[in-house]
Every structure is written in C-alpha cells, then in structure tokens.
C-alpha cells in the first residue's frame, strides 16, 4: 500500500489519490485542485489549519507539530526549514 510522501497518510482507496490518479505518490489532501502537489509552505499551512480545526490546539503548537511530522516525510527531506 502506498503512503503519501507529503503527509504520511496511507492511501488505500482511489478517492485517497488526487483526482483518483493512483500513479501519484501523494494524496488528495496534499494536492492542489489541478492535481499537482502542494508546496512546503502550502502544506505546512493546511496541515496546521487542520490540527487547529480538528484538535483545537494553539496555532503555534500546531505549526510546530506539523513541521515535526513533515520533517520525517520523503517529500520534504531536502527542504531546509526555518
């Protein structure tokens, strides 16, 4: 089973892939509407917003957690973060 290179989500169903394209290595939540992968900054912002919305954490704490999770993922291993 594929695991999204940008957020770590396991991708089981066709609907987990951007526009149902199972050749992609990133998931529907990490794609822009045109199917291309979000940039690091876009993903960090959407990941942080998701943690705030679903868990209610402080924005800075949520951002730190999102950064830490993304640091372990293949899509971002060459990204130098601030």
């Amino acid at each position, binding site marked *: 089973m594929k695991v999204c290179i940008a957020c*770590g*989500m*396991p991708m*089981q*169903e066709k609907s987990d892939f951007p526009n149902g394209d199972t050749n992609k290595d990133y998931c529907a939540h990490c794609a822009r509407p045109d199917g291309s992968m979000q940039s690091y900054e876009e993903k960090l912002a959407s990941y942080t917003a*998701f*943690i*705030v*919305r*679903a*868990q*209610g*954490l402080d924005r800075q704490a*949520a951002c*730190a*957690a999102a950064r*830490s*999770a993304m640091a*372990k993922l293949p899509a971002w291993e060459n990204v130098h973060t601030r």
Partner: protein
Amino acid sequence: MPGTKRQEQKKQTRSRILEAAIEQFAKQGLTTTSTVAIAEAAHVAHGTVFAHFSTQEELLSAAIEEFGKRINQRLHELAGAGGGVREVLAAHLKGLTEHEAFYTRMITEARLLPEEARNTLIMIQSTASFHLSEAVEKEITAGSIQPLPVHLVFNGWVGLVHYYLANSDLFAPGGSVLERYGHELLQYYMTLIKAR
C-alpha cells in the same frame, strides 16, 4: 555475500532491541525503563543496545516513532472503513485497545517526554480526529448529531477515554480499561452528542 549477511544480522538485532524496548516501555514506563531491562528482554549484551542506539533517548525516540507509525496505520485502517460517528469512535477504541499499554504510557508521561515524542502523540490524534471530523460534519448536516465544533467533539471524547486510561489502576486493576468500559463510554458519549 558476507557483508550483506552481516548487514542483515545487524538489522535483525536492531529490530529485536526495538521490539523489546516497545514492550518494556509499555510495561515499565517510558521514562523509567532501564536499558539493562531492555537488553535482557532482547537477549543481547547491554553494550549491544548502544551499538545500535547511541543514547537511551535515541532508543526511546525510535520506539515512540515506530509505535506512532503502527498505531496510525491501524487507526487509519479501522476508522477509514467509513460509517458514522459511532462507527468511527468504536474503531478508535478498537485501535487504542490493541495498543493500550504503550498508549497509556504516552498520555500519562506526555509532559515529561521530549518535544519530538509529544509531536508524535499529536500526529496520532490527527489520524483519529481526521476520520472523526469527517463523520461529525456529515452527521451534523444530516441532523443526527448536535451542531458542535468538531474539535470539541474530538477533545470531549479523548478527554473521557484518557481519564479512564490514566486511572486504569482504579478502573480496571490488572486488566484492559477499554475492554471493560469501552462500550459504556461509547454509549454515554453518543447520548451526549446526538441531536435532541
């Protein structure tokens, strides 16, 4: 090839130490388990542990990261099967029950752990809250549960479950608190949030 064989053996020893560490941390605590106990459980010399993990902290981080991967995968598999809020909460309970001992250590010792470990805990909650928020939004639209903020539906549920886990010695001494009370907690919580 001898080199490859040696590498394979090294990998196996590392994995044996990691498995023993996950088991011992769950039994004896994340911040209190000694590397001597882990070496004994893995049937390796004490020094071998440090040949694979340079410090005790490194071993703890690796164990937490591996545990995080496993529980996340399982929660996603269980909770991603679809269904409503009740099904997602039941799936969450099942996933936590399967990993109850280590998870309980993580939540009770969270404030004592390195930031990295706390972030892993947030990621575990991300997986659970992702599936729950999707189900909650659908049921709010359908009018079957009250129009509550999704983070409070998640935190209310997790607060309840964590209270029982943190006090498992009082609720279910020597046993699984989630096996014993999971059904009751689920029934109660659904009653609280369902539309009047």
